[in-house]
């Protein structure tokens, strides 16, 4: 199991969602993809995308304007 970190801080629509998908495509089952960002809508939309792809969200942390979403591939 590998941890893959994706930093999308400062990026806007649709970059955080796209970078998350790119990382998930490269990851292998069992890996953990951790996406960090500041774009507010993506905090809701990344979990929506994971749900429609049948992927599990391990956790969502938020601190000030920054969020971190952990996804199990």
């Amino acid at each position: 199991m590998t941890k893959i970190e994706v930093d999308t801080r400062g990026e806007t629509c649709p970059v955080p969602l796209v970078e998350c998908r790119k990382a998930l495509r490269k990851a292998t089952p069992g890996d953990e993809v951790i996406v960090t960002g500041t774009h507010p809508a993506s905090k809701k939309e990344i979990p929506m995308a994971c749900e429609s792809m049948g992927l599990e969200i391990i956790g969502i942390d938020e601190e000030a304007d920054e969020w971190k979403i952990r996804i199990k591939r």
Partner: protein
Amino acid sequence: MSNKTVIIVHSGDMDKLYSALIIANGSLSMGMEVSLYFTFWGLERLKKGGLEKGPFSKMNFLGLGKWMVKSRMKKANVAPLEKMMTDFKELGGKIIACEMTMEIMGIKQEQLRTEWIDEYGAVGTYVHEAKDAEITLFI
């Protein structure tokens, strides 16, 4: 899986191309398949060096409006169209170029960014792509 988005890119306006590519990349990111069918003025944007050449659909003011909006987009850190297109291809998006437009406008294959184009087709290709798509748009 018929979980698919098919968009006809008819307009060559920059703002509309942004809309098409944002929806396309968003769909790919949600795990959907995507096909973009480039026709008429949209196809002009697939010419070599043509991607960023489109005017704004409103308030273009001979390019001044476009320049102003583009500088604001840069400030807001909006990705350039070239990056959106690279992401689109990396995520497995498909591009179809309209053959009739090529004939009418005298566009040769060698004038186009052929590395992006998966197929050259006509209306039958669009209908075949769109008939089982959940989202289809004309932009």
